[in-house]
């Protein structure tokens, strides 16, 4: 993501609701100003929402383009890759400080290691690691994220 990720109060509120967190620190600025944090902050996993601002993000329908989810038919594209596509295997965050409404982040992304493993439940698993550093409007490092994705050979047996 080279684009900017503006951290907005309404977005933090919606995100907190969606993870089932009713903590007032995420939406009530009057309450939040009386706490140690001295204002609204974002939940620890909020940078996951940076994909909203990633122009090329493949898991968001693009206006006017075919989408691989269902419409008249079960998928909107002709060819579908085997297995489940990519799944999320691991996510790790290191917090240098917590995000606040008004922050504007940008990130530096680099590829990490790649490895493979056989599994009984899903065949060959191909793992790949991505390290993302999120910087704020003052170019200070605020969050370091390490993500591991996995592509399975077939859907995971249930």
């Amino acid at each position, binding site marked *: 993501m080279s684009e900017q990720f503006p951290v907005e109060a309404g977005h933090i509120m919606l995100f907190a*609701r969606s993870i089932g967190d009713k903590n007032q620190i995420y939406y009530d600025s009057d309450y939040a100003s009386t706490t140690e944090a001295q204002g609204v902050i974002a939940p*620890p996993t909020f940078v996951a929402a940076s994909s909203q601002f990633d122009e090329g993000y493949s898991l968001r329908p693009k206006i006017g383009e075919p989408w691989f989810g269902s419409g008249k038919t079960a998928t909107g594209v002709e060819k579908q890759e085997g297995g489940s596509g990519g799944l999320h295997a691991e996510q790790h965050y290191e917090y240098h400080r917590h995000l606040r409404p008004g922050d504007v982040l940008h990130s530096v992304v680099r590829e990490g290691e790649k490895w493979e493993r056989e599994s009984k439940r899903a065949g060959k698993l191909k793992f790949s690691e991505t390290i993302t550093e999120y910087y704020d409007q003052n170019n200070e490092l605020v969050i370091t994220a390490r993500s591991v994705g996995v592509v399975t050979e077939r859907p995971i047996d249930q």
Partner: protein
Amino acid sequence: MTLKASDISEGQEFSEVVAENLTRTQIVQYAGSSGDYNPIHTDEVYTKEIAGYPSVFAHGMLSMGATGVAITNLVGDGRLTKYGVRFVNQVWPGDTLTTTLSVESISEEDGQFFVDLVVSTSNQDGREVVRGAATARIDP
């Protein structure tokens, strides 16, 4: 509320239910807030017929986010310094998730106390779905 080193001991466990009868609607909410619109999370037709799963299932990051609710409720707001997980099993609509946080160690560095927690979230069948670790600044 913030956690105090003097109030906890190594090996102590804390549990909280972080999702009860998880609904497809909450998964849709998470798709909307996070921006991850992969149809395997919200589109039952696609997921059954094309992806080959029995139903839609939650984003890994939804289970990490819900697990994080138990962590911040324990350690306090803005106190986390590290939080990481592995997604070890899928989370399905109807699941009830319970997070258990175990105090692994308490340490002090230049007068600042930290707690290391072992993080584990399991479903109603006792099957672990998220496994990880978290570190937070705590009061003396």
